[in-house]
Structure formats: structure tokens, C-alpha cells
């Protein structure tokens, strides 16, 4: 029969403690089909054909691509639903049937570059790594041989409307109907943070996992800045955020919902949402139990009499709990010869330690001195239990450093490594060499103890028998934290006067050095005028007689 497909759309709005507002869109297309094993798929309905062809042509098992403009401020905003580093990030698991992974990767990046109008074609062997532990497949399948994994970031990639348009075209309704109506670039790019991503993975169709289907998740996260001086209530509406209101769900969607995070004050004193809804939903999100107001767009009643939904939110910003894990990174030292990369990882949990996986991919032109690698927590040496290091090769591949480090409770763990700045060949400099060179974000992956498990005074009414052993499901959650990218200055020649330099050097070599060398190495003697014939004969005779010549 006809393969089943299904489309869902969803928007989560979370007022942040800093006073900003976070909107996260997710569009999910599920398709029960098989691209592999020579199966020619030609009839596409909801699933975008361009991506389907990519999956089958390049034998992709999993593909994750994100474009981000801005840096997620963990300390102010808490955790994002889907983390991503500034710039572009791409990681792909290939099927184990692929023989030439590097060649396929190269082709794939070029094709994706066309699909998303981005400079992904700049991904080459000098910025691609194969992480051994940090990026496991998120879909089904147990193949974890990292020979089939490729990971690359482009920290310098600028994300703008030209990337948004092709991304929107992948949606079944485009930006004509449904939640995607809100995605207007003039507002989305007037924000503090913007990130859009595409995730493709195989998932189980049912709990027995007899059949698999392909899942395409398109996500878009945006944080709007709502800074108003003074202590008054903050006010925000869909129209204010997106300069649009909603009038209908995408007709192709089986589900279309808006969630508003009202956890901080469900009673509604500090927090007002209008129109009000009686639909509430609870979920465990990032180790925390959250409560959401739900608006179902497939129900006509949601739009009310004016046939348009413009959610209005009023709330007061408050202090927030420090996020349990966050990280920062910077370059230490001065001068253009050496430097030191410092990565700080904060564990703010009051009593539990947890391990983190740190992944660092550093371009070859920063020559890491790996013997200077130190990991210290609370002033003591902290020996990583696992280190995977692949040294760089000049102009071929970057450094890859992966470490499993245990973060003690309530501590800062500092990872430092010294480097030397390489002198590039003059054609290797970018057109703006004095801007500096980028080093991509470090990736910190971890199972973080959840906030719910920290809740010992048990404010929630719970049966006593249920609360002695921490429940595994709730005790920790997976989290990925990206540090900021680095901008490093390399020794740069003065390109503005190569002509002067060439002229000066040639002159100095030709005139100065040449003659000075002559003067220093030769010995000068005054040549005697040649003697007359008679004298020469006399000298020959004197020589035969054995007396000194005249």
C-alpha cells in the first residue's frame, strides 16, 4: 500500500528569567519508507524530495545540520531545547555500506551547500573530525564505529534570510499556513539569538520496532530581547514577536499546537496568558518538571470569535537557578607567538559529581603542545579517565581532542593547553587576515543529574514508597553545551606593501649584501707592473744560480 506519512507542528514559548522570551518551533515529518537497498523512491508527499534524494544517494543514516547566529547564553537563559554552536554545524552518520566515506562526505557537503544556500562547501579535511565518543547516533541502530561519522563546524558562517528561505521551503505548507506563517525574517533576525536546524534519523514505527520510518525534524529557535528599564511587568504577544497572528493550522498537519511554559507561576499571579486555556500539560524537560498551557490550532475554538489567535503574555522576570552545567573558553596570553586555550567547565550541582565528554577540534595552524595539557579541579590535578587525541597534520587535518572528565560537585574544572601560532603561506591568509582566525566551539556532552532529583524536601505530594531510590529515568538527562568560538590572531605580514618590500629586499641583497660580501671575503693586493724583458732574463739566471731574484 501507500507508505504512511505524518506531519506535526509545534511552538513552545518560554519566558526567560532574564526577561527575554524564547520561542522554539519544531516541525516533524515521519515517513514509513526505506531509502536503502536500491529501493527507488520516487513518490514524495510530505517529505521534501531534495532531502530524500540526498539520503538515498549518499547512504546517509543520520544527518544533523544547524545554522546559528549568536551564542546561547546559558547563564541567563538556562538550557535550550536543542543546543547548537555559533555558525554552521554538520554531523552525519553514513551507512556501513559506504566504502569511500571521505569522498561521499565531500560530495554531500557540496550538495547541502546548494540546498541550504550556505558555505558548507568550505568543509574539507582541515576542519572535519571523527569524534570517537561525543556524537553517538540518535536514531535506531547500534553501529557506533566512528569511521562512518563525520563532524565539522564552520564558526564563521553567517546565517541570514538566504538560509531561512530554503529551510522554509522544506515544510509541507511552506510559509503559507500553520505556524510557519510566523517565520518572517524581518522579525526573526531582529533578535538576540537565532538558530535553525534539520535533523534526519531513522526511528521505530511502533514499540516492537518491526518497521522503521524516517523522521525529519526541522527546528527553529529564537530569543527575543525584551529589555525595558524598570521593574514593571514584561509584556509580549505573538504579534509583537512575529508581527503576525495565527489564523489556522497547516491543513496537512495531524497535530498543531502551541505550548506556553507557565511553570514558574501556574496560579497566575505573576504570570498572565490571554486568551486563557484550561488545557494544561506536564512534561519532564531537561531534568525539570515543567507545566505548559496548550493551544490546539486544529480546534476552531482556539481562534475564538475574531478568528485569529494573538497570544498575550505578561510576566515578571525573576532570578533563576544557576544552570547545573555551563562552560566558557578563552585564549590566554599576549603576543603573536604562543598562547594558551583555557576551557572552564562549571558543575553547579551542590553535592553530585558527574562525568562530561569534552570534544575539542582545533585547526592545524594552532600547533597544540599536548604535553602542556592540564586538567585541574579545585586546585588539584584531575586525571581524565579517557583521552582520545589525534594530532593535526599541516594543511591536512585538525587536532582532535576528546576527554572524559569527572566534574566534582560545586566546582570549576579548568582545561588548559598551550599552542604556537603557525606562520601561514602568503596565499593561505584570508582576505581579512587581521580579523583573526576562528576556532570552533568545544562540545561538552554529559549526563547531568536532574533538578527534580535534587528536590529533597519533596514539596510534591508523593507516596513515600515511591521516593526512596532515585528513579533512573528522572535522575539524569543528556545535555550538550557548546562553548564560544575563539578568534585568534596569527602573525600576519603587512600585505599592503609587498611591492615596497620586494624592492627594498632586492636592493639590499643586490647592492648591500653583494658588495659587502665581496669586500669581506676578498683580499686586495696591489698588482706589480710587469718587469721588463732584461729583468726577467736576469731573474731566470739568478734563479738558476740559486740567489734571490731582483
Amino acid at each position, binding site marked *: 500500500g501507500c507508505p504512511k506519512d505524518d506531519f506535526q507542528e509545534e511552538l513552545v514559548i518560554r519566558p526567560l528569567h532574564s526577561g527575554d522570551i524564547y520561542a522554539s518551533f519544531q516541525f516533524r515529518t515521519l515517513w514509513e519508507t526505506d531509502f536503502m537497498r536500491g529501493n527507488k523512491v520516487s513518490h514524495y508527499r510530505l517529505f521534501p524530495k531534495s532531502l530524500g534524494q540526498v539520503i538515498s544517494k549518499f547512504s546517509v543514516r543520520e544527518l544533523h545540520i544547524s545554522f546559528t*547566529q*549568536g*551564542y546561547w*547564553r546559558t*547563564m*541567563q537563559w538556562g538550557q535550550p531545547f536543542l543546543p547548537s554552536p*555559533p*555558525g554552521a554545524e554538520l554531523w552525519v552518520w553514513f551507512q556501513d555500506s559506504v566504502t569511500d566515506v571521505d569522498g561521499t562526505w565531500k560530495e554531500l557537503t557540496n550538495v547541502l551547500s546548494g540546498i541550504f544556500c550556505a558555505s558548507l562547501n568550505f568543509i574539507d579535511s582541515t576542519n572535519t573530525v571523527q569524534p570517537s565518543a561525543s556524537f553517538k547516533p540518535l536514531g535506531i541502530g547500534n553501529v557506533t564505529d566512528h569511521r562512518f561519522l563525520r563532524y565539522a563546524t564552520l*564558526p564563521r558562517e553567517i546565517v541570514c534570510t538566504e538560509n531561512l528561505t530554503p529551510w522554509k521551503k522544506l515544510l509541507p505548507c511552506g510559509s503559507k499556513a500553520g505556524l510557519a506563517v510566523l517565520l518572517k525574517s524581518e522579525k526573526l*533576525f*531582529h*533578535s*538576540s*539569538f*537565532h538558530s535553525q536546524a534539520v535533523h534526519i534519523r531513522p526511528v521505530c514505527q511502533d514499540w516492537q520496532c518491526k518497521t522503521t520510518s524516517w523522521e525529519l525534524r526541522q527546528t527553529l529557535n529564537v530569543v527575543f*530581547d525584551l*529589555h525595558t*528599564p524598570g521593574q514593571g511587568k514584561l509584556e509580549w504577544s505573538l504579534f509583537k514577536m512575529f508581527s503576525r497572528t495565527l489564523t489556522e493550522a497547516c491543513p496537512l498537519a495531524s497535530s498543531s499546537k502551541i505550548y506556553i511554559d507557565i511553570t514558574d507561576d501556574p496560579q497566575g499571579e505573576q504570570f498572565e496568558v490571554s486568551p486563557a486555556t484550561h488545557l494544561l500539560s506536564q512534561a519532564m524537560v531537561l531534568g525539570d518538571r515543567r507545566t505548559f498551557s496548550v493551544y490546539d490550532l486544529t480546534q476552531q475554538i482556539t481562534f475564538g470569535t475574531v478568528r485569529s489567535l494573538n497570544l498575550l503574555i505578561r510576566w515578571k522576570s525573576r532570578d533563576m537557578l544557576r544552570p547545573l552545567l555551563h562552560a*566558557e573558553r*578563552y*585564549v*590566554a*596570553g*599576549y*603576543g*603573536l607567538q604562543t598562547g*594558551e586555550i*583555557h576551557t572552564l567547565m562549571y558543575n553547579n550541582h551542590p553535592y553530585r559529581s558527574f562525568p562530561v565528554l569534552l570534544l575539542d577540534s582545533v585547526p592545524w595552524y594552532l600547533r597544540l603542545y599536548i604535553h602542556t595539557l592540564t586538567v585541574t579541579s579545585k586546585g588539584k590535578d584531575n586525571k581524565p579517565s579517557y583521552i582520545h587525541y589525534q594530532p593535526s597534520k599541516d594543511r591536512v587535518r585538525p587536532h582532535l581532542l576528546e576527554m572524559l572528565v569527572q566534574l566534582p560537585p560545586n566546582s570549576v574544572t579548568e582545561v588548559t593547553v598551550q599552542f604556537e601560532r603557525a606562520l601561514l603561506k602568503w596565499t593561505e591568509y584570508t582576505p*581579512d*587576515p*587581521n*580579523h*583573526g582566525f*576562528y576556532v570552533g566551539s568545544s562540545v561538552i556532552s554529559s549526563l547531568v543529574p536532574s533538578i527534580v532529583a535534587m528536590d529533597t524536601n519533596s514539596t510534591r505530594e508523593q507516596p513515600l514508597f515511591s521516593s526512596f531510590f532515585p528513579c533512573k529515568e528522572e535522575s539524569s538527562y543528556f545535555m550538550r553545551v557548546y562553548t*564560544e*568560538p*575563539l*578568534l*585568534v*590572531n596569527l602573525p*600576519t605580514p603587512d600585505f*599592503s606593501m609587498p611591492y615596497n618590500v620586494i624592492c627594498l629586499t632586492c636592493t639590499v641583497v643586490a*647592492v648591500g649584501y*653583494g*658588495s*659587502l660580501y*665581496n*669586500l669581506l671575503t*676578498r*683580499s*686586495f693586493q*696591489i698588482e706589480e707592473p710587469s718587469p721588463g724583458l732584461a729583468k726577467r732574463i736576469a731573474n731566470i739566471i739568478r734563479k738558476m744560480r740559486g740567489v734571490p731574484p731582483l
Partner: protein
Amino acid sequence: MGLLSDPNRRRALISLLTRLNAPICVVCYMAGVAWFMGLAFEPFTLRTYMSENAMGSTMVEERFPAGERALGTGREFSAHKKKAGGMPVDWLVKTMQSRGLEVFTQRFSRRLPFPDEDKERYMVKGTNVYGILRAPRAPRTEALVLSAPCSPGDDNNQAVGVLLGLAQYFRNQVFWAKDIIFLVNEHDLIGMQAWLEGYHHTNTTGMDWSPLQGRGGSIQAALSLELSSDVVTSLDLVLEGLNGQLPNLDLANLFYAFCQKIGVLCTTQGKLQRNDWDSVSGYSHAVQTMMLMVMKQASGRPWGDHGLFLRYHIEAATIKGINSFRQYKTDATTIGRLLEGMYRKLNNLLERLHQSYFFYLMPSLSHFVSIGYYMPAFGLLALILLLRALDLWIQLATPPTFNLNPPPSQMSSPGVLSVLTPLVISHLTGVALYTLPIHFQEIAVEHFPVSETEAVVLTAIAVYTAGLALPHNTHRGLFVPPFNGWKVLKLVAVLYLAVLLGCTALINFSLGFILALTLVPVAAFVTPDVPKALSAFIMVILSPACTLLFSVFLFQELQEMPVSFLDGWMLYLSVISQGILDHALYGSLVYPLVALLVYPCWLLFWNILFWK
């Protein structure tokens, strides 16, 4: 060069140089001085122009409206400062937070090697407060800094007010592409040093500071603001930084361009520029401005909080508000608009400032002299040393006849020892001059009725004077020096001085030039045969210590604040202590350079004078 490979012509040239050596040297010296004085003559200088395209053509409209409110904030700051008896940390943190910045603090402490009597501090403990304005959709890779020192007393409150006012205004603008760090640093330079060391995680001077929690990536440019009155008559631009480093000239151009645009009187070295360059007074005005810059640069000390940024390759300058008795006044709104304009232009930068000059002198804010123009002045002075060296070499190489290749064994073996001894001894004296003052202060304080600071300065002067008595007697005890031994020593000393001054002038032209002005005549004409008493007097007058003394008087004269001899002497003593402190606190290199290299080199010539 054909000239030199022809033995006859070479001989002729050499004999010419030998015969006319003294006159040529005199001519060179005069030409060098004349060239230097000519640098301030306007037709010989270039007009400043903006080299950086990213800052040049773009239009910026300044709209900062809240000068009065900023002054109000400044008064509030002043009240809280009085109440807290220092930096009002909590108030600043709260105020910056309410303006929407990410706020962090840094504590630091530093024990000075000896008490600083000028600023009355010894054990320094303080806190820096800084707020970061995060640029929207920027990945924290680049930042700009605006700083205002929190000075004791009633100074600089307006600067903090304007800084907070700008922070509030900037926060509501959308065009920022770089994070902007607003820093209020306590204890001026010491706080700035702590902050910069914390930001870059270096420790060059052994200061204690708590690590920074928030950063904005690599800092592209910084401005430090000093403002102590509600209205100002002019704004002064201070460029001279640590060890005579200067920021890129484009930063000065930017300031000048905005002063012109907004209509603010602007000065450099506290001197307005004049248009009458062709009159004597106009020219002498330009000379004064340039000389002030030369003397400030030569001192190697940071002349504002910006001076410490330069070590980290961050272009920085200090803007000082000056309130004199002129009629025309500028209010805080205008200053705010000026800074807004400058930051918007700096925000446009795509690359670090690198297009314009890093080595320059400014006879006025609109004209500059680049390294290619001022280096010949030094080159002419350095040439004298080379000519003297050549002369000595020829004299040594050809004692009775004109034989160009003497057997080397004749002069080397006793010569080396006779040269080495004074060399070693004078350098040991230098080491004593460098180390003793700080280490002996406790003993000195115990035995003499002086304070620690006086002890340090007086020990330095004592070691310096004792050095005059010591080395010129030393070579005699060991062995009989060869005939002409002093010539070998002088040859070595002259070449040593040439290398020393050459290297100094490359890094800090002003210091190199001032040292050359006094040391080159000494080096050129000292021999054991000149009249002892008179020459000794001249040599002492031209020694580095006396150069410093004259510089102090000249500097005061140029600033139009002449001092009596006694005041000048007190100032001289404090300048010495400040120089030693600059070295210990910020890593200024002038004191070790003078103590370890220049003074020993001068002692060598002193040695030659008393050679027997």
C-alpha cells in the same frame, strides 16, 4: 662600493674620513638636531587621514540624549563612593544590572615594593566592576572596552556617570556587532593591570587577582574616559602608553574626525593646534607639542589607563575632559555623542586597526610625522658613533704604517683582558644600581631617618654616584695595560653604545633620541688626553641621571608650569621612585634599561677619561 674595492680610492676615502672625522661628526650632530627640530615645521609634516575604510566613509548619526541624567548618575555615584569610602561595588553592580548588562566583579590586591608617596598607597586592595553589553546575534568573539577609573576623592565621578549613561543608551540600540565592556576600575592603573591580566590570564608582575567570570572574546579597541567636571572646554587625547608604545594612528584620527564633526575643541598634550605655522610663535607651539610627546613617550610610563592595553595589541587611548577658563563650554550630552559616534565606528571594524601608522609623532592633532621622517634624525646621531668607531679601528689597525692587515695576535691578548675588566665591573655596578635600592630599603630605614621611598631613591642615587668612583681605577691593579689600550676599550664602548641606542630607538624612538643627544657627544670626544676636570664636569652633566634632571625641568617648562630648583629636585626624586615603581608594577622597561645597560655604557666612557 667600487669605491671600496679599489685600494687606492679606499685609502683616499679612509684618509679623508680620518682627517675630517671631527668636523663631519660635528656636522652630523647639528644636522641631526636640525632635522629633529624641522619635524615640527608644518610643511614638512603630513596631514592625518583615515586609513581604515570601515571607519572612513560610513555615516553615523549620534543621538545620545541623556547627558544631564548621566551627570545625575555621576553625582549619585559620588555619594555612594563617599559612603562606601572607596569603590561602591554593590551600587555599581545593581546599577549596571538594571541597565541590562551582564555584571561581574574582580577583586585584586597588590603590595607595592615600597610606598608610593605621590598617590599615598602601599597595600592596595580593590575591586573592579564591569558590565558586558552582549551584542545581539554575535558569538562573543569580539569586544570593545570603555573604561573609567574610580579615583579617590571627588575626581572622575562624571566619567562614571557618562559611562553608565552610555551603557543605558547603547543597550537599547540594535546595531552592535561586538560586545561592549563597560569597566570601572579602582586604583587606576593597578586595577587596570589586574583586569587586563585577569582577562588574558597572564601574570607578568606578581599581582593577586581573582579570575574573571565573563569575557567578550578578543578586544579590538578600548577608550578610557577621564572627566571631572560637568562641562568641559576641551577634550585632550592621550596616546602614550607603556614603554612608549602608541596606538594605531587611526584611533587618533577617529577622535579628531568626531571632534571636528561635533564641534568640540580637542587638544593633544593639552595644546590646541594653531593655524599660524609660518610665524615664530606658531612654530614654537608645534615644537612644544611635539617635545611634550617625545618626553612622555621617552618616560616609558603609561600616561593614562589606556597605556596598559597596548601590550595586548589592543588599540587604546585616554580621553580627558579639561575645564579651563575658556568661554566655549561643552556639556556631557555632546561628550556622550562623541563617544557614541566613536563606538559606532569602531563597531563597524571588520579587522583590527592596522591600516595606519603605529610609529609616529604628533606636532598637532591634525598633523603627524611618521617613522620614515623622524628616523633620519636619529640616524645622523648614530652615524657619529660609527664614524668614530671607524676612525678608532683605523688607528688601531695601522699604528705606524699603512698596513691594512696587521697580525691579529699583537693586540688581542692583553687587549681583551683590559677591555673585559672594566666591562664586567661597570655592568656589576649596573646590577647593583638595579637591585640594591629595593632590597636595601629596610636596612636604610633602620639606620637613617628617612622614609622607605626616600631610602629607595637615595640608595639609587648613592649607588649611581659610587659607581663614578669605582671602575676607572680597577684595570690598573691587575696588569699593565698595553699602549693604546683605551682605544680598544673605546672602540668596544662606542660600538656597544651604537647597538644599544639603535635598538632602543627602534622600540621607543623618543628615548633613543634623547639618550643619543646626550651620550653621543660624550662617546665621540672623550679620550684620556683631554683636560680632566673640565671633561669630567661635562661628562657628569651629560650622564643619564643629569639628563633626567634636565628633562624634568624642561618638561615642566613645556607644560607652562615652571618650578623652582628645590621643587624641581623634589620632583626629580619622585620621578625616580615612580620609574622604579612603573617597572615593578606594570613592567616598564626604562629603569632596567638605564640601570643595566645605559649607565654601564656611560661608565665605560668615564673609565676612558681616567685611563692611565
